[in-house]
């Protein structure tokens, strides 16, 4: 009754093949991405399924979810718009950008638009400091960078996302 194992058996095999046979635990992070792609966050069921696949406890899996900031244990908007407001970006106006973006969407940082489509968050440095303001979009589709943004370009992207476009500007997820 392991839903993940059934649905993604090939992908899971490929992931496990990367690591030595006696070090299956290494696969916990890629498997969590897989689970998160399913539901937008990691459900408790998924944690149990991953634990079963790797022969570790659900608590050990959950610890990983809790430690790393790219995994979520709760649902949010379909798209998470994560604006870097760390020092280098802030020096180039990222904070004002975030503020205006939120104003435009009518929400505060950390909130989700009423239609459940977009959650806006601020994040730490994303290694794109020379192209601020910038943000990443995280969703079931994967994760993509959007650099040298203006509030207008960001709003346009959000509009197209709401219409069902893909945000992956390059490769999609692996």
């Amino acid at each position, binding site marked *: 009754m392991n839903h993940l194992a059934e649905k993604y058996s090939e992908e899971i095999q490929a992931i496990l093949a990367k690591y030595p046979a006696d070090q299956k635990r290494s696969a916990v992070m890629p498997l969590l991405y897989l689970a998160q792609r399913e539901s937008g966050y990691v459900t*408790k069921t998924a*944690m149990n399924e991953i634990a079963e696949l790797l022969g*570790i*406890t*659900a*608590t*050990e*899996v*959950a*610890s990983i979810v*809790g*430690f790393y900031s790219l995994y979520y244990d709760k649902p949010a908007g379909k798209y998470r718009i994560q604006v870097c407001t760390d020092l280098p970006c802030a020096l180039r106006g990222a904070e004002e950008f975030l503020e205006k973006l939120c104003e435009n969407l009518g929400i505060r940082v950390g909130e989700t638009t009423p239609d459940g489509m977009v959650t806006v968050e601020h994040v730490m440095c994303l290694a794109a400091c020379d192209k601020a303001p910038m943000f990443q979009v995280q969703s079931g589709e994967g994760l993509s960078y959007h650099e040298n943004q203006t509030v207008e370009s960001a709003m346009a992207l959000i509009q197209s996302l709401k219409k069902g476009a893909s945000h992956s500007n390059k490769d999609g997820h692996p």
Partner: protein
Amino acid sequence: MAKQVTLTIDGKQVTVPEGTLIVDAAKKAGIDVPVFCYHPKMEPVGMCRMCLVEIGRPVIDRATGQVVKEADGSPKVQFGPKLETACTTPVSEGMVVVGASEKVKAGREDILEFLLTSHPLDCPICDKGGECPLQDLTMGFGPGESRFIFDEKMRMDKHVPLGELIYLDRERCIQCGRCVRFQSEIADDPVIGFYQRGRSLEIVTFSEPGFDSYFSGNTTDICPVGALTTADFRFGARPWELNNAASICSQCPVGCNITFNTRREARSGGRMVIKRVMPRQNEAVNEIWICDKGRFAYHFTEGGGSGNSERLTQPLVRKNGELAPVSWDEALQVVAERFRQAGSGLLTLAGGRLSNEDLFNLRQLTQGLGGQTALYTQMAGGDLVAQVGVGQGTNFADMGAGSAILVVASDLHEEAPIWYLRIKQAVERGAMLIVAGARPTRLEKYAAHVVRYPYGSEAAAILAMLNSLSAKRPNLPEPVQALARSPELQAAAKAFAGAQNGLVLYGSEGLGLEGSQALAQACANLLISTNHIGRANNGLIAVWQRANEQGAWDMGFRPRTDLAEAMKSARVLYVVAADPAGDDPSMAEAGEFLVVQELFLTDTAKLADVVLPVEAYTEREGSFTSGERRVQRFYPAVPEPAGLKADFAVTGQIGQLLGLDLEARFASKVMLRIASQIADYAGLDYVRLAEVVEQWPIVGRGDVYYGGTSYENSQGLGVQLAPAAQRGAAVPLAWPEFASQSHSQQASAEGLLAAPINRLLDRGQTVWPSTLLHSRIPQPYVALNPADAAVLRIPSGAMLQVTLNGTARLAAAHLDENVPQGVVLVPRSMGLPIFGPAPVEIRRAEVVSA
């Protein structure tokens, strides 16, 4: 012996083995380095940074490799710029450690201030108050006032249940990771973990049920603050109000050393009551750990529960068909008179939770009257343990590379959790483990070899191992010959024979009396033939179902296979600490006159003609003999309730009325008699049993080298007996009659065989009164293979009518692929009458709709 290293700590020269950490070296020298995250039983992690010291190392001339000397000829020592953690740094030759400098003091103050920034001011209501190293260190090093603004404190959840047994106060947690590390490193139950990171780190559990581990209570001992507390004790008392009494856990044959903490309590009418059970250090037995059964299942001693767990308070004699209270004089007179009349028609049936002193007196009394004794148990082989049991000086802690451990017919994680833990550790040190069983058990994870046999072939499997080593006994029965050809079995046998030390633990899974006697004999033969007897860390251990069954064997008690008939034909039946009628209603037809000596009005007691109430073992003193044949003393923890007597005293007084020379007043004097009459116990007395030697690590002294709240052992490490083989007696091989029973011989018409298994938490009389544990005790159930269930159209969880030994009971169906086909696993003491392998009928119970 490891190389010795000499260093200087705070001006004191210390010599310790190479590899010792500075904290431990300091402790050995009597110098305390404060710690939070470091625990001497676990790998150092250097997380809390409390143990900072200055470390200087001798300067070595690169060219010559020689130590550079100062002008005065002393070695030149160079100190690093930073303080270093004493808990992670091993000693080295010529090292100079300074823990008493201003710099170190300031460093420790700094760390303490950090730890206190978000720590709540709970001390006045905190369970750890009084035994908390954070509190102690704050007194020692702490800042007088907080520079941290109170409103900025991190607020976190308090009273978070991590399951039913353990509570977490997230604000008090100092993130030292001890609990998480204990659960993964020591218990190998990583069911609690850290969640989030940085200042938001918090302890969580995602197991079902929460904190699902038999060892969970230990985390509350080693937690250096009051973050983890037990549901049983929290808010129960302040540590400094507690008295303590040394004792021995009565729940299993490991014989963990414990301490009962007691307090006089208004709520209990001003009586002294037990508030909690704590481990007491015995590095040869339980180190500083106990399992949750030992920690939480003590409530049976209190009585006051419901149903049959109400403690008896006065003697009862049947008058006009009703049990009526009478005086002790009257009751004892009635009993003595009946015993006198019975003479050789007396059958004394005793249970394995009695002390050696009780059992000795029972035997003396019965023998004096020419009667017979019987041990009420479903497991045999104690006579063989007395011959080829483990040698004096046996200690799992000493087993590592070169030691082989064979566990057969026992699920140790369920039956003796501390042995499970210690064997796991021995394997981690290099010991070779063989697990022989009819189904997979948790211990197999550590096994180098797994021998799988069908239920019924337990002894045969061991004989097959022996057979593969020599042609000594080629005429094995057919199923055994097949087993003997298994390469895995042969490899296991070879590895066992080749090991320097060899130890066998046998249990009673799937077995009754005949089967376990045969198994014990087979194991003894294997040990004798491979020359693994008569020495420390070699020999046989029985995984008894009760704490003192080995003591009962040593005192001369034997189980009997014809017990039911013997009971029926006895003129007078004297049942002590046993409840045969409760276990099996068909045992209710006892002989002419029934005397029951008990704590509770058990089903058997309800049938009795005389009921003699006794003290719980917490109310008196005595001794138990553990599975490793260590005789250990327990002391009274609470005053004896008025009107009750100890078992040995009751028996002694009956004997005196009959003109027999029995000791009825002092347990210590009974021990002297034991010592003079039972060869293996020669030389023992209560003084010897109370002897202690310094143990490592040093715990429980309320200092800042914090080993936890486990009690230091000051009242006796016990004495391990020498088996006959060690005393030079010849121990011949004997070949069991009952080597193997094929499945079809035993199974029901449907082809189903019930095999008994043992569960840690069952519905037995000594567990069930602890209501806290109820959520962890399953409903009566049987387990069977899904394939069998499919044939019988039994869905998982279905209610079944299970007919065993002529009795039909309801039980839920657990489907489990690990159960061999054709077998129905029936847990003992879970409401179903199972004693040994037996035919069983199962069918779906009619569902009564509401």
